[in-house]
């Protein structure tokens, strides 16, 4: 009877349960993303904040001192006489890598987008370097690129005297780019291959009926329809190119001179070899800003150059 009275009370009727379906769904959603969110907070956002904090300090690891220096490290960044050369090497490396990687990946994808017996073997072969250990791959290339190494040995058979690949400024940069492209071109190739296979065949048939030559078909049909993939791969490749480290560390250690000292390698030298953790952090902030600006710019450009069917 009392229970019945409780239920009949006006307060009981007006108060809706806290766990509504919408709230329960939200909670479930948050719980699902929680591990990822915690990961991002702990491993990305907090370190990012700490790097900024470190960039305002002079951190002498050996003396165990951590002194607030305000913008001193940023002042040092502006006055660093090596920085311009380092940024130049970074730009050359990134530009070379993006152009060579994307054009080779697209070319390979077009060649491999054929219905031929055994084509899967070739696709696997071109993709296989992607799954090879980066350092192992680079060490092997390091041996091949020695003056008396495998590449020059092969050139000698053809009667050509090869250059000292890793010891001359131009060839050292080319070598590092080529080693990186051959390592990762398979990934972009697969993305292009998937995009090419998504282009409707009817469009090519209609173009053929209209008498369009093959190059025109490629320019007017293929390129616009795979442009979202070109955007994606170029963003991935540019961001990846700015993070190149192992290849430089193994092949050239930034030399000859500073010709292959890209920003990440320079940052590593400052922080971990010279023990300037504060200045190293400042360079990290610079790298972060460059990556952020480039990604934002590319994302903005998508409206002009990318064609979306929808």
């Amino acid at each position: 009877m009392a229970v019945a009275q409780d239920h009949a009370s006006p307060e009981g009727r007006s108060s809706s349960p806290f766990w509504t379906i919408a709230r329960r769904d939200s909670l479930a959603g948050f719980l699902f993303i929680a591990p990822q969110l915690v990961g991002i907070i702990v491993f990305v956002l907090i370190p990012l904040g700490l790097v900024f904090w470190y960039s305002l300090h002079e951190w002498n690891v050996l003396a165990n001192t951590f002194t607030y220096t305000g913008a001193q490290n940023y002042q040092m960044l502006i006055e660093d006489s090596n920085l311009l050369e380092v940024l130049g090497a970074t730009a050359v490396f990134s530009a070379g890598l993006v152009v060579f990687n994307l054009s080779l990946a697209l070319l390979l994808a077009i060649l491999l987008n054929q219905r031929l017996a055994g084509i899967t073997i070739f696709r696997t072969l071109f993709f296989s370097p992607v799954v090879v250990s980066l350092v192992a791959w680079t060490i092997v290339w390091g041996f091949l690129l020695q003056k008396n190494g495998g590449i020059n040995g092969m050139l000698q058979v053809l009667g050509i005297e090869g250059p000292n690949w890793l010891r001359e400024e131009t060839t050292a940069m080319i070598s590092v780019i080529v080693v990186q492209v051959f390592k990762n071109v398979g990934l972009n190739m697969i993305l292009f291959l998937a995009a090419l296979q998504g282009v409707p065949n009817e469009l090519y048939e209609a173009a053929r009926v209209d008498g369009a030559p093959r190059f025109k078909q490629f320019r007017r049909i293929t390129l616009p329809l795979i442009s979202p993939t070109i955007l994606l791969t170029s963003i991935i490749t540019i961001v990846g190119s700015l993070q190149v480290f192992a290849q430089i560390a193994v092949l050239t250690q930034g030399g000859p001179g500073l010709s292959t000292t890209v920003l990440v390698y320079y940052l590593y030298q400052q922080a971990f070899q010279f023990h300037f953790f504060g200045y190293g952090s400042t360079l990290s902030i610079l790298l972060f800003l460059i990556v952020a600006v480039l990604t934002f710019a590319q994302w903005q450009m998508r409206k002009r150059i990318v064609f979306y069917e929808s």
Partner: protein
Amino acid sequence: MNYHRALKSAVAALALAMPLGWSCTATAQDAVNLRMTIWSANEAHLKLFNEIAAGFEKDHPNVTVTYESLPFDTYTTALTTQIAGGNAPDMAWIFETAAYDFVNSGALFPLSDTLKATKGYNLEELSASAAERWSKDGKLYAYPFSTSPFAMFVNNDLIKASGAKPPAELIAADQWSWDNAIATASAVGQTGKGGLIVRDFNYQIWQNLASVWNGWGASPWSADGKACTMAEKPMVDALTFIHDAIFKKKAIPGPGENVDFFAGNAAMTITQISRASLLPKENPFAWDLVPLPKGPAGNYALIGQAGLGVMQTGKNAKTAAEFVAYMTNPENSAKLSQFFPSARKSLLNAEVLKKTNPLLSQEQIDKVVISGIATGKVIPGHTGFAQIQQAVRSGLDAIWRPDADIPGTLLKICGQIGPLLKR
């Protein structure tokens, strides 16, 4: 009722467990785990280190000592990263090139008092020149446990096959000069084999070239370390000589050429005597160990050192210092000297060294090891060495090409490292 019984049981269990737990905590607090970072992963080295650790643990039952091998090439970087990450080891090996950084920064615990207080330690027999780089204000901050002279290993089979005279004959005729050494290397180089290899130099670790340029009396910076002397005549002459040996005489393998002396592919190599262990046991060649040739500035010797220091930040710095004192006492130093030549005077005699270096002859020990340790200069080092090393390496790249402007490049290098030296 059940609830009360359970509560009583829990309280009783807690009452029993607390003292037990307390005693465990007390034991854990007394237990001292010492960790030493080293750059060797050699099994024979580790076996000896563990034997020494076991001897110390016998007298100090609460102490355990572990060794952590870090890769040689990136050793200092890995060590400082550990320190930056708040995970500094209790003790660490330190390269001679990084000694000034560690000693001057205050990163190391002073060892003099502990070493002097150790019975029978006899610190006085460590020469002042051996301790110079590891001391500050009269206190020793790291013990130089390895003082290894640079010398020249030669492959007499290749030298004889090229028609040149073996170095031993040149020494006997008092003709063991750099000119003749390079002529010998060049003769072998003409046969398609490698001539002279300055081991580990590889056109990057330029400080190893001190094994050549010291013969010209050259030095990268002044004795007080404040002024760059790379553009001065002795250095220009020495580097011109090395440049000619590489590009004109083909006596030294050029940049990007890999030749291994210990595989029998080169006439001679400059390295530390501890590398005798690399001599091939299968298909051996006729080898000899000779002192570095005489340069225009006369006879000279070069030594490499390794120090053993205790980290100031460690919780157990005092115990770690006691372990360093035990590890480097006269008895253990004698054991260590089979791998790491000791700078203790009592161990610098042919009798002891012959026992610990069975591969070397009496003459080689007298002429190369004893004389080298006694008279050798230590390989160049400086505060902030890593940055200076990198600036010089990067600058010297312009010299390692056939058409190099050596004086101009060296002047440019001085311009770059001048401000770093003054810091």
